[in-house]
């Protein structure tokens, strides 16, 4: 546990001594502001629905940039050898890295609390819906960070890892659209189940469905497991 904590702090430090975290936070908050304005101006409602929907898609493209260096860079610096010969269990390494990226996401989401505050000043938002929307975004972040970590373990080239990360997440986004295009019922149901949009939708409407929560947790754990296998298998090559 101490090792995971040390790795967590080290990763956060690396984020903040490089311009990465700053650029990332700034970009994300800028996009959030844009989506917020568009959403409120277009619908005339005191709601965050449009902003939340767009943000979850923006995260899909941006988060792999945040996670891409995790294993790719360790491989390049030769520090993976350091970690794998120190008494650090692999789960601690994975968890420390995952938690550091996720913590940055939480920071990001805290930054966007400005927008519900603006809504509250001018209107009367449904706080229940706001809370569930944030819950949905948090779950998205958990899953995306996990997928990005997996992509990072596949290559020692960080940029390639970033692109792979987007590629890994893309099916979860496109599955919803594909579902509307297929004839076979079973396939449509399958694609819907796979689609992230299906599972995020409830949260943005104020509905907490335990199935949706389980879906996100499964994706998170699934990708962490794949990352574990992938890092482990590197040593056998």
């Amino acid at each position, binding site marked *: 546990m101490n090792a995971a904590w*040390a790795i967590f702090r080290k990763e956060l430090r690396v984020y903040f*001594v490089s311009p990465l975290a700053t650029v990332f936070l700034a970009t994300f908050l800028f996009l959030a502001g844009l989506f917020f304005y568009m959403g409120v101006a277009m619908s005339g409602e005191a709601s965050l629905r449009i902003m939340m929907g767009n943000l979850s898609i923006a995260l899909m493209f941006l988060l792999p940039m945040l996670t891409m260096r995790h294993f790719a860079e360790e491989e390049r610096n030769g*520090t993976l050898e350091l970690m794998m*010969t*120190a*008494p650090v269990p692999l789960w601690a390494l994975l968890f420390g890295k995952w938690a550091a990226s996720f913590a940055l996401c939480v920071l990001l989401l805290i930054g966007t609390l400005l927008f519900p505050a603006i809504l509250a000043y001018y209107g009367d938002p449904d706080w229940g819906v706001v809370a569930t929307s944030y819950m949905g975004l948090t779950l998205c972040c958990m899953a995306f960070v996990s997928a990005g970590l997996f992509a990072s373990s596949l290559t020692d080239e960080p940029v390639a890892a970033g692109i792979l990360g987007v590629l890994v997440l893309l099916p979860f986004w496109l599955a919803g659209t594909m579902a509307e295009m297929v004839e076979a019922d079973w396939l449509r149901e399958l694609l819907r189940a796979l689609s992230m949009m299906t599972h995020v939708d409830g949260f943005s409407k104020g509905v907490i469905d335990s199935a949706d929560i389980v879906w996100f947790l499964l994706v998170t754990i699934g990708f962490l497991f794949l990352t574990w296998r992938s890092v482990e298998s590197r*040593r056998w090559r």
Partner: protein
Amino acid sequence: MIAVEALSKNFGTFTAVNGISFEVGMGQVVGFIGPNGAGKTTTMRMLTGFIPSTSGRASIAGHDVFEDPMTVRRRIGYLPETPPLYPELTIGTYLRFISQIREVPRGEQVRRVGEVMERVGLTGWENRILGSLSKGYRQRVGLAQAIIHDPEVLILDEPTSGLDPRQVVGIRDFIRNLATDRTVILSTHILSEVEALAERAIVIDGGQIVADDTLDGLRERVGAGVRYRVELCAPKGVHVATEVGGLDGVDQVQPCGDENGITALDVRAPQDPRTAIAGLATAKGWEVRAMERHAPNLEEAFLHLVGNER
């Protein structure tokens, strides 16, 4: 302390390490020497548990590297070929991080970091960014990283590669001081390094151990390689080589040239045969043109062991 038994590693169809066995006792310093690509790094990586072996066993302090990796990892300090640094961090934060993952007790971390920095000559450099350091300083940080948890076994992969001569001397002194109460394996392709640091050398080539001996033992092998180069001028028709070969105490005579009536011979003998040869020449009325002792140095012995083509 370290026991390796028939250890092999294949990468696909390429055999990097081919069934090597050796043992290193407590407090010994062993030089692992061989040309580039001989399998030194692969062997060290298997010893540290970083890569699994294809077959064979390795254990450190009685703990199997593959079955009990965490115990082994706690007992070793390892400096890979390139110092494993995070370029964004400062020396201080990096070493502090290493002390945490190396399980140095919380209350001792600051003190240990200070100690190892002093030991490798980095005092006052806490706030330097690792990415901006020169090769010599990176190597020092790499060494500091390897000893921060005071390990019983040190595995150092080419600890002085890429350093300037003054730094080489400094790092060697440092390793010599460390070695007093520790088991050290260090790899190198520089013979003088083994001479300066180790009492025993394991010569490895093509994934196999070609010699495992004390330095004195290696020099004895060199002794067996002593040749005497003799040039004699004898009348035509005399078979000089046979006559010299007939002398007592001469093992082997190899003619190596016959020009202008001067016969050149390579003579091998356990004792210096030059007096006897001179005596023979005088008795037969031959002219002695040259006689010299030709002893290969350690470098040549090494080349002989690993094959001359390299």
